[in-house]
């Protein structure tokens, strides 16, 4: 079965650079979530989109932005990168109206800021 696809899997950037992470949800899933997991930390919710509109917002820095496109893929844009942005970034997808509620996660994109 198709899973959530994230790219790139690994990314190395310098401070103050920009980075873009991509997420392709499971086919027919209409909602995408972004999570950030720092070293030894639990995943922290950043932002989510439903039908290309932002549906919820968590602890996402103002330097970050995201959007969901007409094909339901999503991109997380990070600017003015800081050392503290080094983390594993997960994308997850689900069907909004499915009562079962679990999220399906991608393998993550590991960002290292030097």
């Amino acid at each position, binding site marked *: 079965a198709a899973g*959530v696809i994230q790219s790139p899997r690994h990314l190395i950037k310098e401070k103050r650079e920009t980075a873009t992470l991509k997420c392709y949800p499971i086919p027919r899933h209409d*909602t995408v*979530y972004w999570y950030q997991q720092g070293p030894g*930390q*639990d*995943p*922290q*919710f950043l932002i*989510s989109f*439903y039908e290309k509109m932002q*549906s*919820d917002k*968590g602890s996402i820095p103002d330097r970050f932005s995201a959007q969901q496109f007409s094909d339901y893929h999503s991109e997380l844009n990070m600017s003015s990168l800081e050392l503290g942005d080094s983390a*594993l970034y*997960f994308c*997850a997808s*689900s069907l*909004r*109206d*499915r*009562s*079962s*509620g*679990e*999220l*399906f*996660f*991608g*393998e*993550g994109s*590991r960002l290292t800021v030097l």
Partner: protein
Amino acid sequence: AQSVAQPEDQVNVAEGNPLTVKCTYSVSGNPYLFWYVQYPNRGLQFLLKYITGDNLVKGSYGFEAEFNKSQTSFHLKKPSALVSDSALYFCAVRAPRSGGYNKLIFGAGTRLAVHP
């Protein structure tokens, strides 16, 4: 506000012995509760969930969890641990009536180490 607590940073168990990974939650109303497992440098894999119904939920890889409303707990269990079960386990909660959106709040995680 909803929250999840995993009181143990690490759980050590010998292979073949039963294991328990603890989780307590705080949420208004009836919670949706989940367990996920994370292997090194991998994504989160869904193990099991409690939405409603039987308090004992069975999931993947022989894991089960017991929902206890009075103790606001959702402990993960397995009758006989395997070395391959060694991983990071996250408990998560979703608030009901969240508009159909499935945003999950995760606990801090518990590292399970199963020794041969």
